[in-house]
């Protein structure tokens, strides 16, 4: 048995069907977690195939706070701990939890605290977004630069004597092939 993991995104309305299939395949329920992202809350349900060691993580993405999701405690009773926790910390509602604490699982000073984005986190996200944007812009500029240079060469070759242009093209191809060989 070799341990492997994978993440698979599934639509929210296929969750019950996916979980039922895991139950039928006798996969072991591992956990449910939530992540508060920029575009909404992601839920990740993890199951392990005990025959192969595959840890499959099913992701339901970009849920709004207050969304109603079906509880999986009908198939996996032990999930009640996580569904109650996610309800209290993230504000996702689970319909039909077998042992439902109705928001009293944790005694919290702030409702749904994991959806509160702290100034430090916001600043870190903005900085990371700026760095990523700057890197993408730099890469795009480098590509455009390469394209502009190619266009200039084509214009020069068009103005040349055809025989000479053919020789220049052949030399350029040999140079490109050599550079590619050296890269490999």
């Amino acid at each position, binding site marked *: 048995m070799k341990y492997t993991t994978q993440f698979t995104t599934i639509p929210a309305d296929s969750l019950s069907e996916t979980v039922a299939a895991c139950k039928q395949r006798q996969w072991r329920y591992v956990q449910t*977690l939530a992540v508060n992202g920029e575009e909404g809350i992601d839920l990740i349900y993890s199951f392990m195939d*005990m025959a192969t060691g595959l*840890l499959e*993580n099913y992701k339901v993405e970009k849920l709004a706070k207050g969304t109603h999701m079906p509880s999986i405690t009908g198939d996996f009773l*032990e999930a009640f701990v996580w569904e109650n926790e996610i309800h209290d910390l993230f504000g996702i509602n689970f319909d039909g939890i077998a*042992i439902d604490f109705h928001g009293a699982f944790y005694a919290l000073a702030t409702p749904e605290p994991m959806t509160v*984005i702290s100034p430090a*986190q916001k600043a870190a*996200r903005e900085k*990371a977004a700026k760095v990523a944007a700057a890197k993408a812009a730099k890469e795009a500029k480098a590509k455009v630069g390469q394209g502009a240079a190619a266009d200039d060469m084509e214009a020069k070759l068009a103005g040349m004597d055809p025989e000479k242009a053919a020789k220049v093209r052949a030399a350029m191809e040999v140079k490109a092939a050599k550079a590619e060989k050296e890269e490999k």
Partner: protein
Amino acid sequence: MGKATVIPFGPQHPVLPEPLHLDLVVEDEKVVEAIPQIGFVHRGLEKLVETKDYNQFVYVAERICGICAMGHSLGYAETVEQLMGVEVPKRAQYLRVIWHELSRIHSHILWLGLAADAFGFESMFMHCWRLRERVLTLFEKTTGGRVILSVVCVGGVVRDIDDAQMAEVISVLEGITDEYLQIMNTLISDYSVKNRTVGVGYLSHEDALELSMVGPFARASNVNYDVRQFGKGAYGDLSDFQPILSNEGDCYGRVVVRCKEVLQSIDIIKELAAKMPAGDIAVPVKGAPAADAEACNVLEQPRGECYYYARGNGSKYLERMRMRTPTSQNIAGMVKALDGCDFADVNMIVLTIDPCISCTER
């Protein structure tokens, strides 16, 4: 049918190492229903990833729980290393496993003492915790800390164990073994211990699978699953590893499984000490996890499988860090085991899942 009475158990109870509340619906000394409640030590530690960078958070992770400190720091570091594609040197992997197995030894011996105290065997509790002190002394000599070790970092470990210290570790473990065998034999063969544990809190193999139980709690019901079987890290270099299983399914079976796991951990440490490779104990880790990169990891803590999840956001702070601990997975199994038990057996059944509520609530 008798009159149903609801008796509150906890959050403060002499046998509970940590606060856990159960509403026990009792009819004529039989528990007909048990409704658990936790949340007394929820500290919101996972939210601290927003303000502690991925190197600093190791120190938060190991403070989730005193008993599982080494395990959580190891599991967290491995998850971040997976996220960032960091390869830890072989020597560091061996050192991590040695400290982790020492942690398993001290955790199980601690639990054996608590279990003995739960049914009034106070002298056994004293002996177990006296023996445990020798393991904590080893921790102090090799890491500087008895409980919170602060020895794991992202990329490896911060301290090495030299040959002289390693020889001392092996010598102490060999010295512990004889005394431990006396304790173990007393626990598993004494008729008064068996009277309080055999047939108590029985969970069948099917129930254990149905409820996705993990750790010694599940292995006592013959569930053949231990994360160490996957052979990750230094566990892959062991000559042979087989989980300790029992068919008993009751409190006695859980005692036996944990007793034998202590001996197995001693053997693992001896084997890895003999094979210890030379080399670096850490690699430098630079940069930050990529935006939207995510990774998950599992680790066999003393109480069972622990699941870790991390997601990056391009900065040095993680977007999300999540630990799903074994006790939280076993709560449903505990509720099932309490169903139909005698009221006097409640504390024994609760203790045999080896509850670590600090881990459960974070």
